[in-house]
């Protein structure tokens, strides 16, 4: 699988994503935000960071970069787009995903390992996990508080488009298990077509035991399985 990682000025997880693709048997390539061209891409990653310094609102300026025009067109044609952390914020601003990411309830930057629960495995992003599987992945954000109008959130739930929730150590959703205050503990969602996923936790930073967790591998394995066909491992 050929995966393009878009680098914005201020991205800081583009190398993690590049490596995560390599570790998953894919061929990664960077695309600078001023560049165009996704014709060779099987999938695109919008990485974490602080694109354009998060000025105005996180992701609000990045969405107007030339590369994003191509990413939006790629997504509209059904191309898989994985939007992690700042990438999730950019994808929401660009209208690829519903809702918005507001300031954490604590008004603090959160940087710690967070428990998550896989809510559905019937997607190109989560097929390598078990339903209800509890994961631990790093989170690193100040604006991760997912909000949308109640109808939108009901629709996400009904369609099975909530992929991940924040949970506590017992695997249950709770106040303390949802530190940023996201609506219904939502940590990751996908669009209606299922080809765009946004999540605040970092699967790209949970790929190797040496960094503390390998729970992020499943996201990349799921994508590889989807792109390579059911016969591939």
């Amino acid at each position, binding site marked *: 699988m050929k995966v393009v990682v878009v680098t914005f000025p201020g991205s800081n997880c583009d190398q993690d994503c590049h490596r995560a693709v390599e570790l998953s048997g894919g061929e990664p390539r960077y695309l600078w935000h001023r560049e165009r061209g996704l014709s060779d891409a099987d999938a695109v990653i919008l990485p974490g960071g602080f694109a354009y310094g998060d000025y*105005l*609102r996180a992701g*609000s*300026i990045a969405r*107007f970069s030339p590369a994003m025009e191509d990413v939006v067109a790629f997504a509209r044609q059904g191309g898989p787009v994985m939007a992690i952390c700042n990438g999730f914020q950019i994808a*929401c*601003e660009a209208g690829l995903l*519903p*809702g*918005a990411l*507001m*300031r*954490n*309830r*604590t*008004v603090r930057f959160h940087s710690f390992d967070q428990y998550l629960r896989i809510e559905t495995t019937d997607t190109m992003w989560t097929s390598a996990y078990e339903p209800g599987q509890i994961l631990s992945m790093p989170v690193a954000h100040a604006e991760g*508080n997912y*909000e*949308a*109008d109640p109808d939108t959130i009901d629709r996400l739930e009904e369609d099975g488009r909530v992929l991940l929730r924040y949970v506590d150590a017992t695997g249950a959703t709770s106040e303390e298990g949802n530190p940023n*205050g996201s609506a219904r503990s939502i940590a990751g969602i996908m669009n209606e077509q299922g080809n765009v996923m946004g999540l605040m936790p970092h699967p790209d930073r949970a790929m190797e035991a040496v960094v503390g967790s390998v729970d992020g591998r499943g996201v990349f394995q799921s994508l590889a399985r989807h792109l390579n066909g059911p016969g591939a491992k």
Partner: protein
Amino acid sequence: MTRYQLEVRVVPRTGLLDPPGKAIHHALHSLGYLGVEDVRVGKTIFLQIDAPSGREARGRAEEMCRKLLSNPVTEDYEVSVLGEGEVQDGTDS
């Protein structure tokens, strides 16, 4: 062409949790300002726009609000024309 000074106020939508506002509310209470009922934090953006009329300048600012300056999911905006002046030749237009 006239140069208009405009003020854009972007505020979190009423009814949505505003964590910075809540934190400031707490801080004010702990300073003894007990009568403060609610605090909401927004931003103010000052624009200078050259346009044939104030109406046109305001229209452009509102379009900027919809496209970039505010997030329609979580924020409301308000545009006011603060003042106007002549556009002089050789200025940084």
